[in-house]
């Protein structure tokens, strides 16, 4: 052991898997494709685990964090720009890596069962490995540009995986939409990078942090601008208002993809990015307030849409958007470790929710409409119990994982000044809605009587349910990492990165009261769902009928897509086609060369004649050209020029 943690291997191994399966996978047998695809993230996870053990003092050497590995050859080094391939392991990236490679590996296992019968099996796993590669680069990147590599790369993997079923038009459209909306976010990210370069002259996180540390007086101004630009990027990737529209559509992709990319890992990149660059946000109360407001608003907004969705995956998609809103809220009140805590527990229970939903869909032969489900408890007992654990966890019931992390965020919000009380209240109400729509899903899917004749109940393979069981255990006990006084274990572990804030170490009974209130809210949500969907199953339809207006607005998702289409897409296409293409390019610029076109016609007639001719005429033309050049050379130019340019000189020379 030379003390190296081989961070480079963490992204490189999945990339090797991608290359192997991507280039050769078509010709390989399925078992080999599956093995390659599984070994890559497993090996990567092993490297992460080894690093984690070393960090926790189990191992031959304990590296000092942050631990940096830099490639001796820089990536970009020209002019004033110098960007290294440098990977940084600190407490934050370690936690993220454990989630990304750990949950990632579990979902790979699940996918072997889930995608077993698909054509293009190799392609699916190649893309999954590619995703892991980019995601680990995103997490490990020691400078903002390397993070941007992963950032755009996971967007690409997401695009490819959403559009995995090539001939499904809705999927291709969804993939396209995801990429474009993410690019709008990336635009903000890029401007943020430019601002960083303009103001700090570097994109390396550590250098920016130390420059800020050395200048405690720097507040607001450019830092607000940087933070807000980065927030635009984060809002795109983490599906926050107003850029959340791509995530629900992304559910067109295979379910394991929804679990891994559109729930557990990629969409949390925005949260990770804010925490990673928190030293910038810390200097701008305004930007932090915007983060908190965006988060709280998204949490509530998405939860209301989630109330009336009938597609099981769409409910989960909106719940993801809503939970990401919680994380943003946590970031916005500077409770970074609480946000990461929720990110971790959310990764467990949301992956579990999606994978359980996947088992349900698998069993129902592809059906995703909850109105056609029901009574699946008996045929899918393991899935049912896993789903129950996940629902309790996301609902925030004690002692499931979600309870602790959501509580930490709400508590921090409550302590955050007067505005914080409002934010807390929004989060508090959202908790009620969350609990309601999750139990609605639970009742509709598993309880009651079957509402349709499922074509045939597929048995769930062991590779699928065993993964669900592991995630269920994590959803139940995962909150353990947040136990402990003050910041909790995770908070204390992360504190070298996120810093310690006095507010978080506040104590007393307040936290207890708030927790009790939150659980009461969740219980209320459960009770309402129970009333509506178990005791009086005809009641929801009546309610919808009596509240036509609000119901229609919600089920049409506030008409946001329609609004964007009318205000951005249509005008852009209209202006491009009618104003720019027809009026400017064809009429104005085209008209400008109209005179040329007239001459062209004349020459065209001549050329047409040549065209019909044989080789000799072309050769003749060439020869004539050559003769002209020769003549040109041999003429007594110097004397001619003097007279010619005497005139020219007077014309221009003053």
């Amino acid at each position, binding site marked *: 052991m030379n003390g190296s943690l081989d961070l480079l291997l963490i992204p490189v191994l999945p990339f090797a898997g991608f290359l192997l399966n991507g280039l050769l996978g078509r010709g390989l047998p399925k078992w080999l494709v599956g093995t390659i695809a599984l070994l890559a993230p497993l090996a990567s996870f092993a490297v992460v685990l080894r690093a984690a053990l070393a960090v926790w003092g189990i191992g031959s050497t304990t590296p000092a964090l942050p631990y940096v590995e830099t490639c001796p050859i820089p990536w*970009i080094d020209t002019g004033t720009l110098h960007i290294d391939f440098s990977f940084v392991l600190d407490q934050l990236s370690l936690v993220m890596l454990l989630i990304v490679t750990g949950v990632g590996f579990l979902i790979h296992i699940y996918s072997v069962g889930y995608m077993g019968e698909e054509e293009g099996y190799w392609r699916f796993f190649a893309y999954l490995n590619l995703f892991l590669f980019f995601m680990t680069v995103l997490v490990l990147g020691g400078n903002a540009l390397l993070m941007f590599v992963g950032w755009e790369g996971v967007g690409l993997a997401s695009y490819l995986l959403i559009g995995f079923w090539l001939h499904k038009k809705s999927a291709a459209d969804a993939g396209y939409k995801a990429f474009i909306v993410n*690019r709008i976010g990336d635009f903000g990210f890029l401007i943020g990078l430019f601002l960083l370069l303009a*103001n700090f002259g570097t994109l390396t996180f550590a250098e920016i942090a130390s420059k800020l540390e050395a200048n405690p007086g720097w507040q607001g101004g450019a830092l607000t601008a940087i933070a807000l630009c980065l927030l635009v990027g984060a809002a795109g990737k983490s599906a926050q208002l107003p850029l959340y529209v791509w995530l629900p559509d992304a559910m067109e992709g295979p379910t394991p993809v929804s679990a891994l990319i559109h729930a557990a890992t990629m969409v949390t990149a925005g949260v990770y990015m804010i925490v990673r660059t928190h030293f910038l946000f810390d200097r701008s109360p305004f930007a932090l307030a915007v983060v908190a407001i965006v988060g709280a608003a998204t949490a509530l907004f998405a939860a209301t849409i989630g109330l009336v969705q009938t597609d099981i995956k769409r409910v989960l998609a909106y719940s993801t958007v809503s939970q990401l809103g919680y994380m943003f809220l946590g970031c916005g009140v500077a409770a970074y470790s609480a946000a990461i805590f929720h990110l971790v527990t959310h990764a467990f229970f949301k992956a579990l929710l999606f994978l359980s939903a996947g088992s349900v869909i698998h069993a129902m032969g592809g059906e995703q409409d909850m109105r056609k489900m029901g009574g699946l408890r008996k045929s899918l007992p393991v899935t049912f119990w896993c789903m129950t654990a996940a629902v309790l966890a996301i609902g925030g019931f004690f002692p499931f994982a979600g309870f602790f992390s959501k509580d930490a965020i709400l508590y921090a919000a409550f302590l955050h000044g007067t505005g914080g009380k409002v934010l807390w209240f929004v989060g508090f109400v959202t908790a009620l809605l969350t609990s309601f729509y999750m139990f609605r899903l639970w009742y509709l899917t598993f309880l009651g009587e079957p509402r349709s004749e499922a074509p045939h109940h597929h048995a769930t393979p062991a590779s699928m349910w065993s993964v669900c069981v592991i995630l269920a255990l994590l959803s139940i006990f995962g909150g353990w990492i947040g136990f402990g006084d003050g910041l909790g274990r995770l908070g204390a572990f992360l504190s070298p990165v996120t810093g310690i804030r006095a507010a978080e170490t506040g104590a007393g009974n307040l936290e207890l009261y708030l927790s009790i209130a939150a659980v009461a809210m969740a219980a209320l949500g459960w009770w309402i769902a129970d009333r509506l969907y178990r005791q009086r199953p005809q009641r929801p339809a009546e309610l919808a009928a009596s509240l036509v207006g609000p119901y229609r607005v919600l089920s049409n998702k506030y008409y946001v897509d329609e609004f964007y289409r009318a205000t951005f897409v249509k005008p852009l296409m209209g202006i491009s086609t009618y104003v720019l293409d027809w009026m400017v390019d064809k009429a104005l610029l085209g008209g400008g060369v109209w005179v040329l076109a007239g001459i062209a016609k004349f*020459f065209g007639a001549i050329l047409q004649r040549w*065209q019909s001719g044989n080789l000799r005429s072309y050769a003749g033309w060439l020869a004539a050209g050559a003769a002209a050049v020769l003549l040109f050379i041999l003429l007594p130019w110097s004397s001619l020029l003097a007279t010619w*340019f005497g005139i020219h000189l007077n014309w221009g020379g003053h």
Partner: protein
Amino acid sequence: MDSLNASIVTLILLLPIAGAIAVTLLPDRGKTPCWTALITTLVTFGFTLHLPAYFAMGASGFQFEINRPWIENPAIFYHVGVDGLSLWLVVLTGLLAPVGVLASWRAIHERRKVYYSLFLVQQTAMFGVFVSLDLFLYYGFWELSLVPMAILISMYGRRNGPKAAVKFFLFTFIPSAPLLVAILWLYARTGSFDFATLQGAIASGSLPTGALRWSALAFLAAFAVKVPVFPLHGWLADTFSEAPVALAMVVAGKLGLYSMLRFHVGLFPAQARALAPLLIALGAIGILYGACLALAQRDFWRLVAFAAVSHFGLIVLGIYGLTTTGWNGAIYQILNQGVFESAIFVLLGALHLRYSTSQIGHYGGLAGRLPQTATLFVIASLAMIGLPMLNGFIGEFLVLSSTFTGVSRAWAVWGTVGVILSAAYMLWLVQRIFYGTESELVVSRPATDLGFAESIAVWPLAVLMLVMGLAPWLWMRAIEAGPNPLEWRNALALQPVAPHGALQVSATAEGPR
């Protein structure tokens, strides 16, 4: 191999001509002209690789220089050489030649002798433009590069070749006349066509400024049309629609952009500096204008043409920003553009060959049938839209970031919007052609995936996109040793445009940095 250094440039110039003669002399039987051209271009490419292998990377100035009197009066010299600016352009031209031959392998099946001989003449002309250090020589090659192009467009056009050829010819020939006049005027004043001599004379300030301004403008106009820079792009879409793939991929961009760098900014730094604000604006406008028009197109050749206008806008922005980073980024982007655009062209050409249409709406769902085409097309599109790790990103980022930090924040932000739009049009194209249900056309005309010639033409380009995206230093080492715009800017005692103060950190007197 060191002994080659003295004659390598001449060899590179002569080989394609020799190949052209061989094509003409050998019988037009079967694939003979194709093979002759392929071997010629491959050997030439091999010779161009000699340049980077023996190039003293850190050294500035010209290397592999040859300077021999050719004609005494007027004093025309056979003066050629390569520096950091032209080195990779020569190699790129060498690389794209066999790619072009392979792309033509199936597409061109009549009058092969004419086609390949003119194609090879065109290669010599392009090499000549990049290596000439005597303005007269340069002008000769410049004109020579137009002639075979126009003939080939006219002969091998898809529907309306002659019309496109005439349009191309007029657009590019007419501005060449003032260019010639300006060159001759310079000669009349200095008695020399030599690049360095002229550079010195212009820098010394002994020439009348008014006339200098006009001649700089004449140079610029010829180059701007050839690139083309918005709003002079009228010829591009028709040319792309009609030109054979192998020529369309070289007709625009690098010749004009290189000439701008070398002979506009390089010869007339003061005049270029004065016009820079205009060109920066045109470049930036071109980025969005081209992108918006690409969105509106229904024909893939036209779409690619406007995408190219958008990319050229970015490069022009980088050139006239006159910062070291932006300048290097612009040069790098010229190379990148040559690589990914060629790949796109070969692939679209393969589609056109199979389905005989360029109407995007007729396509659909091809990914299942032509997986290799789809894969390569997606990779090239991603490089084009600037996905990090592929080459397009490096150039784009260098240009936009340096514009932001050193030139103009407003134009940089404006240009960055192109990032969103480029993804919108390219992925829309991918979507319409490769995803979704199979269209009627696709079902009715069973086609095979890329043939050997096509895939061997595109795969190296795909690999190159990745390598250039990951290890730009391999190329940058030489590029950095080329001319540096800052020298001129400082020599002109002009300060870089100060960033606007709107976003300065408020609490400090001077702000960070």
